[in-house]
C-alpha cells in the first residue's frame, strides 16, 4: 500500500505520521541529554549543507573556508551521538554510540586527508571556487587560470575551453581516482552505512545509539543519517566529479559542454547546474545503496585495520603525491 | 768498586731464551690441557714431555761447557730497586735438566699403564706436568727469589700428588704432613733469603756470589761495600750472621730433601701413586734440596758446612736403620732415599760438591728404577685383587718367590739394588766411593770427634747393603706367600710379568744404573759426569770463615783411596751376604716372615718406628705445645679475662649511671627540642596538603594580594 503515484508521497506520509507520534522518553533516561541529542545531530548535519554550491550562482554561504567549515560542523555530529548513547541509559545505545564515535573519528582522518589532496591541487577551501576550476567557466574566477590535460603543463594540451569530464578533478590529477576511492570508503563509514554499519548492527545491538528513540526524534535521527549520506555524496561530487559542471566536453565545433551548461548566474545555468550536481549526488547515493546490498558487515577489528593501516597511510602518501602533482601544474 | 746495577744489567739478547721458554711452556701446556682430555691425557702429556726431553738434550749438548752460560734480564723495577731474572746453564744445571725431563718422561710412560684405570687420570697428568715445570724452574733459574717461587711450586705439586687419592684419609694426612714439614724448612730458607737481601740488596745468585767474594770480615763483622745507584753502601753485619745465613738456607734443603729432623714426611709420602714416588725420590722434590745446596754452595761458610755434614750423616744412619725392619716395600725404598740423601748432604757438608751432585745423578737413575720396579710388582699384585680377595699390595709379607713370575722386573730390581748397595760395576759404587773418600779426608783434617761422622757413613754402607738385599730376598725368593694368606690357591698362576709400557722405563733405568754408563768402573774421578761438575775452586766466603780448601784435603787422603774402596766393598759385601744368609729360602727368618706382626724386640722397634721420631713429635713437642697452650688459655681466661671483665663490670656500672643521666636529662632536652620541632613541622606540614588545587588557590590568593599591594 503506497501513498501517491508510484508511492512518491510515501516519505511525506511517513514523516507526517512520525511527527504525530507520542514523544516517549524512557523513565531511566537522562532527559537533559536524551532530548536534545537528535536535535544536535540534525543541526550538525544540516549545517553542513549551508556551504554547498548547488549551482554556479547559488550557494548557501560562500565563505572562504567553506570546506573546512563543512568538515568541522559535521564533526559535531559525534557529540550528538554521544549524548544520545549516554542519555538513553541503555547498554545497546551506549555500545552503539561508542562504536559509532570510534568509527567516525577514525575515518575522519583518511577523509580529511583525501579532501586535503583536493585542497592542495585547487589551492582553495572555497567550495564554489573548487567547482569553478573544474569546468569551462574557470575564467569567471580567475581570468588567467588555465587547465591542462592531467594538469601537467609540460604536456602542453590545454583543456581550459574543452571542459567537461576532462577538467574534473579526477582528470586534472589522475591520482585523485584513488583519493576519491578513499573519500568514498571513508564517507561510507562517516555516515555509518553498510558495510561499516556496526554501530547500528541490528542483529546485535538492535539499532545502535538510537534504539531508545521513537516518534519524531527517531525521525530526526534517521533524517540526519540520510542527510549525511546526501551531504557526503554532494561533497564527493563537488570535490572530485566536477560539481555542477557538465560531464560532456567541447569537441571542436560540437560544443557539448557549452550546450549542456548555461552561463553562470543565468536561469539556464542554475537549472543545468542543479541538474548535474543533483544527478551526480544521487548517482553516488545509488552506489552507496548498491554497496549496502552487496557487502556484508565488517568486524570491528577489520574496520579499524582498514582505516589505520591502509587508508590513512595511503591518504598521507596521496597528500605527498598531490603536492608533487601541484608542482607539475605550474 | 762494584756497582750493583752493573751486576744486574741485562746481557745481550740470546736466542737461548726461546729454548728456555719452550722448556717451561711444554710442561705448563701439559698442565693446562690434560685436564680437558680424558683417555688421551697420557699420550698427550707424554708427547709433550718427550718434546721437552729432546729440547733439553739439544740444549745440554749445545751449551756443554765449563763455566756455564748465563742469561740475565730485568723483571721489574720499583723505584731504584731492580728485580731481575737470570738463568745459569752450567753443567750441573744441564745434567739436571736432562735427568728431570728424562725421568719425568719415563714416569709419564710408566703411568700410562699404571694409572690406566684411574678416573682422575687427566688430573694426575696435569699435576705431573706442574711438578716437572716447577722443578725445571729451580734447575734453570739463578736467582734465589725465583728459585724460592718454584721451590714453593714444587712443594705445592708434591702436596697435590701425594694427596692424589685424597679420598683416602691417610693420603690427605700424608700430603698435609709433607706440606707442613716443608713449610718449616721453607721458613728457614726465607730467613736465609732475608739475611742475604739485607746484605746485598739483591737475590741474584751471580751478583751475590760476586759480592760475597768481595766482602770481608773486619773485627768479627761481615762487611760488604758496593755502589747502589751511584751511592756507596756499606752493610755491616755481625760475622755470625754469615753462618746463620748458610744454615738458614740449609734449613730449606732439610725440609725439601728430608733431612733430620724433618725427614718424617717422606715415608708417609708413599701414600701417593708409586710413579709419583719415583719422580719425587729420583728427580724432582728431594733432589731440589740438594741441588739448591749446590747452588748456594759457595756462600756456605765452615760453620754451616759442619752442621750440614753432621745432619747428613745422622740422617743417613737413622734412615738406614729404619729401613732394616720395614714390611712395606715402598717404605724400605723411602727410607733408603732418606739415607742416600743424607749421603748427598754429607758430601756437600764435607765440601765434596762434585761427589754430592754425582751421587744425586746416579741415585736418580737407580732409585727411579727401584721405585718403578716396585711399581710393577704392586701393579701386578693389584691385578690379582678381586671382590673377595683384598690384601695390602705393598706389603712384602704377601710377596716372595716373585722371581719366577716377574723375571725381568727381578733382574732390573737386582741391578738397581746392587747399585744402591754400592758394588763395583754399578753407578752407585762410583758416587758413594767419592763421598766416602771425601768424608774420610774431611775427618782426618778435622780430627777428634769428627771420626764419628766417618764411622756413621761407613756403618750406613753395610746397613744399606743389608736392607736392600733383605728386600730382594723377601720379595723375589722363596715361595709365594699370598696364596696361603688368602687361601686362594690358584692365585699364583694369574701373576704375570708387566707389559711393555711398564718394563721399558724400568729396563732403561736399570741399564743406566750400571757404571759403564758413566764411563768408569772403579774410579769416580775418571767418570765424565763427575768431571763435569767440578767443585768451585776457592770459596767465596770471607777467608776467616771459609772451609779448608778441597784440593789439599783430597791430596792428603789420596793415599787412603785404595783401602777405603776395599773397606767399603767389603762392608757392602758383608751386608749382602748377611742378608742372603738370614733371608735365604728355608732360613728361619724368611720362613716366619709372613706371620710377623708388629715387632716386639726393643731394638727392632726402634728401627721399625724410625727411632720413634713421629712419636716424639706427637708425644713431646705437640703435647708440650698443647699443654702450654692450655696453660696460656687458662691464664688468658682466668686472669687476663678476669681483669678485663672486672674492668668491664665497672664500666657497665658507670655506663648505667651515665646512661640514666643521658636518658633523663640530656635526652630530655633532646626530646624537648624534637617535640618542639615536630610540632612546628606538623603545623607547617598541614599546609602541604598534596592537593594541587590548594596550592593553586594559595598561589593565586598571594598573586591577588600582591597585585592589590601594587595597585593600591
Amino acid at each position: 500500500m503506497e501513498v501517491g503515484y508510484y508511492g512518491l508521497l510515501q516519505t511525506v506520509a511517513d514523516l507526517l505520521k512520525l511527527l504525530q507520534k507520542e514523544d516517549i522518553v524512557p523513565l531511566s533516561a537522562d532527559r537533559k541529554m536524551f532530548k536534545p541529542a537528535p536535535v544536535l545531530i540534525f543541526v550538525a548535519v544540516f549545517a553542513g549543507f549551508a556551504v554547498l554550491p548547488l549551482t554556479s550562482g547559488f550557494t548557501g554561504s560562500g565563505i572562504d573556508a567553506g570546506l573546512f567549515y563543512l568538515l568541522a560542523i559535521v564533526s559535531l555530529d559525534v557529540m550528538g551521538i554521544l549524548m544520545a548513547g549516554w542519555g538513553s541509559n541503555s547498554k545497546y545505545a551506549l555500545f552503539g554510540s561508542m562504536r559509532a564515535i570510534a568509527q567516525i573519528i577514525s575515518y575522519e582522518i583518511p577523509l580529511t586527508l583525501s579532501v586535503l589532496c583536493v585542497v592542495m591541487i585547487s589551492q582553495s577551501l572555497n567550495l564554489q571556487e573548487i567547482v569553478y576550476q573544474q569546468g569551462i567557466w574557470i575564467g569567471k574566477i580567475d581570468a588567467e587560470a588555465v587547465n591542462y590535460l592531467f594538469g601537467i603543463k609540460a604536456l602542453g594540451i590545454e583543456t581550459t575551453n574543452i571542459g567537461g569530464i576532462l577538467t574534473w578533478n579526477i582528470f586534472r590529477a589522475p591520482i585523485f581516482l584513488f583519493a576519491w576511492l578513499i573519500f568514498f570508503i571513508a564517507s561510507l563509514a562517516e555516515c555509518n552505512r553498510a558495510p561499516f554499519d556496526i554501530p547500528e548492527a541490528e542483529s546485535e545491538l538492535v539499532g545502535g545509539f538510537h534504539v531508545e528513540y521513537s516518534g519524531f526524534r527517531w525521525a530526526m535521527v534517521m533524517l540526519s543519517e540520510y542527510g549525511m549520506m546526501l551531504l557526503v555524496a554532494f561533497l564527493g561530487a563537488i570535490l572530485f566529479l566536477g560539481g555542477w559542471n557538465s560531464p560532456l566536453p567541447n569537441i571542436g565545433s560540437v560544443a557539448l559542454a557549452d550546450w549542456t551548461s548555461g552561463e553562470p548566474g543565468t536561469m539556464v545555468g542554475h537549472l543545468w547546474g542543479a541538474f548535474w550536481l543533483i544527478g551526480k549526488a544521487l548517482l553516488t547515493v545509488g552506489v552507496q545503496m548498491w554497496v549496502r546490498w552487496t557487502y556484508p558487515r565488517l568486524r570491528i577489528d577489520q574496520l579499524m585495520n582498514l582505516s589505520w593501516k591502509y587508508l590513512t597511510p595511503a591518504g598521507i602518501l596521496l597528500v605527498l603525491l598531490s603536492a608533487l602533482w601541484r608542482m607539475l601544474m605550474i | 768498586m762494584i756497582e750493583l746495577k752493573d751486576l744486574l744489567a741485562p746481557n745481550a739478547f740470546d736466542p737461548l731464551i726461546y729454548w728456555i721458554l719452550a722448556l717451561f711452556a711444554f710442561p705448563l701446556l701439559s698442565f693446562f690441557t690434560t685436564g680437558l682430555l680424558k683417555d688421551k691425557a697420557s699420550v698427550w702429556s707424554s708427547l709433550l714431555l718427550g718434546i721437552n726431553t729432546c729440547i733439553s738434550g739439544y740444549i745440554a749438548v749445545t751449551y756443554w761447557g765449563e763455566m756455564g752460560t748465563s742469561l740475565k734480564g730485568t723483571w721489574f723495577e720499583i723505584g731504584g730497586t731492580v728485580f731481575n731474572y737470570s738463568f745459569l746453564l752450567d753443567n750441573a744445571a744441564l745434567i739436571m735438566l736432562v735427568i728431570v725431563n728424562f725421568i719425568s718422561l719415563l714416569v709419564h710412560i710408566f703411568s700410562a699403564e699404571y694409572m690406566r684405570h684411574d678416573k682422575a687420570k687427566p688430573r694426575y697428568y696435569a699435576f705431573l706436568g706442574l711438578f716437572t715445570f716447577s722443578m725445571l724452574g729451580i734447575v734453570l733459574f739463578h736467582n734465589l727469589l725465583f728459585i724460592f717461587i718454584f721451590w714453593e711450586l714444587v712443594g705445592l705439586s708434591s702436596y697435590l700428588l701425594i694427596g692424589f687419592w685424597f679420598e683416602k684419609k691417610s693420603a690427605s694426612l700424608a700430603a698435609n704432613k709433607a706440606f707442613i714439614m716443608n713449610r718449616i724448612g721453607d721458613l728457614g730458607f726465607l730467613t736465609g733469603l732475608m739475611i742475604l737481601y739485607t746484605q746485598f740488596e739483591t737475590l741474584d745468585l751471580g751478583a751475590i756470589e760476586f759480592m760475597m767474594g768481595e766482602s770481608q770480615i773486619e773485627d768479627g763483622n761481615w762487611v760488604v761495600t758496593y755502589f747502589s745507584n751511584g751511592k756507596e753502601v756499606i752493610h755491616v753485619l755481625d760475622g755470625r750472621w754469615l753462618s746463620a745465613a748458610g744454615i738458614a738456607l740449609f734449613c730449606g734443603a732439610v725440609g725439601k730433601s728430608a733431612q733430620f729432623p724433618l725427614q718424617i714426611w717422606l715415608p708417609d709420602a708413599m701414600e701417593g701413586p708409586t710413579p709419583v714416588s719415583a719422580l719425587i725420590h729420583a728427580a724432582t722434590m728431594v733432589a731440589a734440596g740438594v741441588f739448591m745446596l749446590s747452588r748456594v754452595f759457595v756462600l756456605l761458610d765452615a760453620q754451616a758446612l759442619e752442621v750440614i755434614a753432621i745432619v747428613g750423616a745422622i740422617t743417613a744412619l737413622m734412615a738406614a736403620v729404619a729401613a732394616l725392619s720395614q714390611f712395606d716395600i715402598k717404605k724400605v725404598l723411602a727410607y733408603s732415599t732418606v739415607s742416600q740423601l743424607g749421603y748427598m748432604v754429607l758430601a756437600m757438608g764435607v765440601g765434596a760438591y762434585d761427589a754430592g751432585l754425582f751421587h744425586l745423578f746416579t741415585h736418580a737413575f737407580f732409585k727411579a728404577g727401584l721405585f718403578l720396579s716396585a711399581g710393577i710388582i704392586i701393579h701386578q699384585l693389584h691385578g690379582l685383587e678381586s671382590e673377595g680377595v683384598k690384601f695390602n699390595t705393598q706389603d712384602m709379607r704377601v710377596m716372595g718367590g716373585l722371581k719366577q713370575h716377574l723375571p725381568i722386573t727381578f733382574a732390573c730390581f737386582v741391578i738397581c739394588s746392587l747399585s744402591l748397595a754400592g758394588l763395583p760395576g754399578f753407578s752407585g759404587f762410583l758416587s758413594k766411593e767419592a763421598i766416602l773418600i771425601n768424608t774420610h779426608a774431611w775427618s782426618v783434617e778435622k780430627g777428634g770427634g769428627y771420626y764419628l761422622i766417618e764411622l756413621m757413613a761407613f756403618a750406613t754402607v753395610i746397613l744399606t747393603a743389608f736392607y736392600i738385599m733383605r728386600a730382594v730376598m723377601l720379595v723375589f725368593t722363596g715361595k709365594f706367600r699370598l696364596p696361603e694368606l688368602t687361601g686362594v690357591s690358584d692365585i699364583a698362576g694369574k701373576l704375570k710379568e708387566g707389559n711393555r709400557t711398564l718394563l721399558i722405563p724400568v729396563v732403561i733405568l736399570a741399564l743406566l744404573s750400571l757404571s759403564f754408563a758413566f764411563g768408569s768402573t772403579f774410579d769416580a774421578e775418571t767418570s765424565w759426569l763427575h768431571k763435569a761438575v767440578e767443585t768451585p775452586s776457592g770459596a767465596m766466603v770471607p777467608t776467616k770463615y771459609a772451609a779448608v780448601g778441597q784440593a789439599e784435603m783430597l791430596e792428603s787422603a789420596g793415599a787412603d783411596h785404595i783401602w777405603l774402596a776395599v773397606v767399603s766393598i767389603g762392608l757392602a759385601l758383608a751386608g749382602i751376604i748377611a742378608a742372603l744368609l738370614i733371608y735365604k729360602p728355608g732360613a728361619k727368618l724368611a720362613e716366619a716372615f709372613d706371620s710377623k706382626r708388629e715387632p716386639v724386640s726393643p731394638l727392632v722397634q726402634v728401627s721399625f718406628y724410625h727411632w720413634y721420631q713421629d712419636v716424639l713429635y706427637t708425644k713431646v713437642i705437640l703435647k708440650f705445645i698443647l699443654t702450654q697452650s692450655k696453660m696460656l688459655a687458662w691464664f688468658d681466661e682466668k686472669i687476663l679475662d678476669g681483669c678485663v671483665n672486672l674492668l668491664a663490670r665497672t664500666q657497665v656500672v658507670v655506663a648505667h649511671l651515665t646512661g640514666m643521666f643521658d636518658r633523663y636529662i640530656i635526652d630530655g632536652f633532646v626530646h624537648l627540642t624534637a617535640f618542639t620541632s615536630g610540632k612546628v613541622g606538623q603545623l607547617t606540614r598541614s599546609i602541604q596538603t598534596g592537593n594541587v588545587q590548594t596550592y593553586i588557590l594559595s598561589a593565586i590568593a598571594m598573586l591577588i594580594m600582591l597585585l592589590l599591594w601594587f595597585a593600591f
Partner: protein
Amino acid sequence: MTFATIILYCFIGLTLLSALYIAFTKNVLYAAFALILTFLGVAGIFMLIGAGFIAISQILVYVGGILVLIVFGVMLTNRLKGQQVTTPSYNKLLGLLVSGGLLFIFYKAIIEANFGAIKWIESAQPESPGLESFGMKLMTDYVLAFEVIGLLLLLALIGAVKIAAGARKEVEDAS
C-alpha cells in the same frame, strides 16, 4: 547597533551562561556538554569579529576533538553504576573569593587601561583578512612556530598513546 552586533551579544550571553552552568553543575557530563555551547559561543564570537578560520578551527579541534576526549575520559574514569556522574566540590567559598578577587582586579585593570583610547585601536580599520593571507603568514613569518607546534602535537599524541597504552597489555594478552 547592527544586526551582527546583536548576534554577537547573543553569543556572548550564550558563552557566559553556559560557562556559569559549568561552574555550578555537579554533573561532569552536563558540564562537558555545556562546554559545547561555550565553545560554539566563542566560535560564533570569533566568526563575527573576523576570525573565521579560528572559529572553524575552534569547532573542529575543541568540539570534534577535545570534547570527545573529555567525554570519553569521564566515561573511562567513572564506574557507571547510576545515571549521574557527579563530582563534589570543595573550597567553594575560597574559590569563589579568589576568582572573584581576580575578576575584580582584571575588571579594574581593564577599565583603567581604557583600551579604546589606545591609538592603534582607535585608528584601526577592522576588516576581515582573507584566508590566503592567513596561510601566507603561517608559512612565512610563523613557519618555525608552526612546525614546532606540529612537532609538539605529534609528540603529545605519541606520549598520550604511550601513557594510556600500558594498561591495555593484559587485555591484549587475554585475547
